[in-house]
């Protein structure tokens, strides 16, 4: 019924990305949406931010050698605000990110990530500060995001994480790809539609 698989945990090194309200235009600028597939988006993740950071003589975390191959992304609050482009979580996932841990997420980004099996879990601002500091000072630290125990551990830290129950359950059972569920018992859908007078234009 579903083509998706259960997601119980994500593990690996973590890429720390500081900043509040990081919008999806920054994650993947609109010019890279000119495509009829999601292929190759990973090459352009945070492209403009990265170029501007390089121009200032700094190194963006997505360019830092220490974070190549990172599997987790640590962020601050309202990550993924703005446009509904699924290209944003697609670009992150294709780059290699398998879970995002942050203080909070914009709703459409959060939902889009779930739809492609990329868990976004929440932690308090204080705990995010600890996690980001650890990933910055000890980039080789291996972390584990565990949806069973609802914690992220690594480098001696054990941080509680949160996620709405429905989303957690969808990821753990593999039902995050819901199309099959939506098509099941379709007679029920037809009944709901029949009772909506606008469906027949109020005939």
């Amino acid at each position, binding site marked *: 019924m579903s083509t998706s698989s259960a997601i119980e945990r994500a593990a690996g090194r973590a890429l720390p990305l*500081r*900043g*509040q*309200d990081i*919008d999806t*235009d*920054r994650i993947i600028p*609109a*010019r890279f949406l*000119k*495509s*009829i*597939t999601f292929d190759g988006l990973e090459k352009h993740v945070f492209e*403009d*931010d990265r*170029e*501007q950071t390089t121009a200032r003589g700094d190194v963006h975390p997505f360019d830092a050698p220490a974070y190549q191959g990172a599997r987790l992304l640590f962020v601050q*609050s*309202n990550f993924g*605000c*703005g*446009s*509904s*482009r*699924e*290209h944003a979580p697609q670009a992150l996932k294709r780059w290699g990110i398998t879970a995002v841990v942050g203080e*909070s997420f*914009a*709703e*459409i980004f959060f*939902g*889009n990530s779930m*739809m*492609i099996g990329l868990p976004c879990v929440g932690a308090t*601002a204080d705990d995010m500060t600890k996690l980001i500091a650890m990933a910055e000072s000890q980039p080789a630290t291996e972390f584990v995001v565990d949806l069973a125990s609802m914690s992220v551990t690594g480098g001696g830290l054990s941080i509680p994480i949160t996620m*709405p129950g*429905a*989303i957690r*359950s*969808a990821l753990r*059972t593999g039902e*995050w*790809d*819901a*199309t099959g*569920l*939506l*098509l099941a*018992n*379709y007679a029920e*859908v037809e009944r*709901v*539609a029949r*009772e*909506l*007078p*606008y*469906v027949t*234009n*109020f005939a």
Partner: protein
Amino acid sequence: MSKTLFQKVWDRHAVRVLPNGQTQLYVGLHLVHEVTSPQAFAELEERGWKVRAPERTFATVDHIVPTRAQARPFADLMAESMTSVLERKCREHGIPLFDLASGQQGIVHVIGPELGLTQPGMTICCGDSHTSTHGAFGALAFGIGTSQVRDVLASQCLAMSPLKVRRIEVNGALGRGVYAKDVILTIIGRLGVKGGTGYAYEYAGTTLDRMSMDERMTICNMSIEGGARAGYVNPDETTFSYLRGRQYAPAGDAFDRARAWWQGMASDRGAAYDDVVTLDAAAIAPTVTWGINPGQSVAVDATLPAPGDVAPLDRPGVTEALDFMGFAAGQPMAGTKIDVAFIGSCTNARLSDLREAARVVAGHTVARHVRALVVPGSQTVAKAAEREGLDAIFREAGFEWRGAGCSMCLAMNPDRLEGREVCASSSNRNFKGRQGSPTGRTLLMSPAMVAAAAVAGEVVDVRNWTAELAGVGDGR
């Protein structure tokens, strides 16, 4: 029991609670455009599914269409390819497409209401975050991602968790030169860009009661900028008279039946809200964003904040924004020099927006250093504006008059900022790089304020343009 419109619409469309705890919602109207749908159609076909309700699905091209040279094939081969894919998919699946040749093409959130497709009490989805616009009619309208577009195409349903409802009451009369755009920028400035997370916003109060549908759409459009997944206004006589006679609206006796049903979907008096916020319309000034998110705004006659003026957690954001914009804390907003003036987007490119802007520019000339363009929200808006001679007013003043589309709001077509240009824009997002140049800078404001800035060459307070504004906004 008293219910909000949100609860009523949700309950009427809820099919069942899915095993994961989300609710399966029936979708009354699915709007499709060329940018977020090709991958959805491809996956649909890979899985061997058909479009379940092509009669409840409508498509147009808006994001990538060039607004100047519109002859096919487009000069931009990728734009041409995305357009052809949408055309082919619509043909194969029997989805009506309002393309450039239809005479009814335009920004998806402008044409849905214009055609009478958007109606009270509906659930509406589109692969675009500004789908919240349609809430102006008392619909529940959600922006969705491409995988959800695939789901809606396949099942005409969406898996969602319910939202809380915050009632935002704006009462009183807006001052002359103050518009719906200023109201929503003020709301976002006050509640923050993430203040709406987990909520649908119900906009109400005497100010909203007196607003036209165009103005209500401007407000609902930017709900997502405040973090709210949806925003709505309860349907009333203004809504019903807007709908009467529209192409897809019910007609004759059916209209009367519809009106009774629509009326019944409005929030009940005494309905309970999760939160209530009130604003005084008289205290709202023309508002301009100075930073890199739509919550970073000030009244046009105010000065820019310093990092020390905000909560400690927000300080890095203010520092980053001032640095990116090249502005100094404490500098006045008015007098900021602009390079480009853009009147367009799903926020502010409807006929009434163009009328207000035209009133300001009439008899004036765009400042010599300013590149100015008007991009009507739809072909229908463009034709109506041309009948009134608005295009001539803009052209004579030195604006370019373009074809309909999203254009410089997100710069997926050739309309974009260059380098560090500063753009006075009637659009909805001032994110870094949003208007096509990674270092370009956007100042969001009302269309009348953009018009005044275009003429002055810098940000000015449109309230001082008393001769131009005579008669505008009176009685609101």
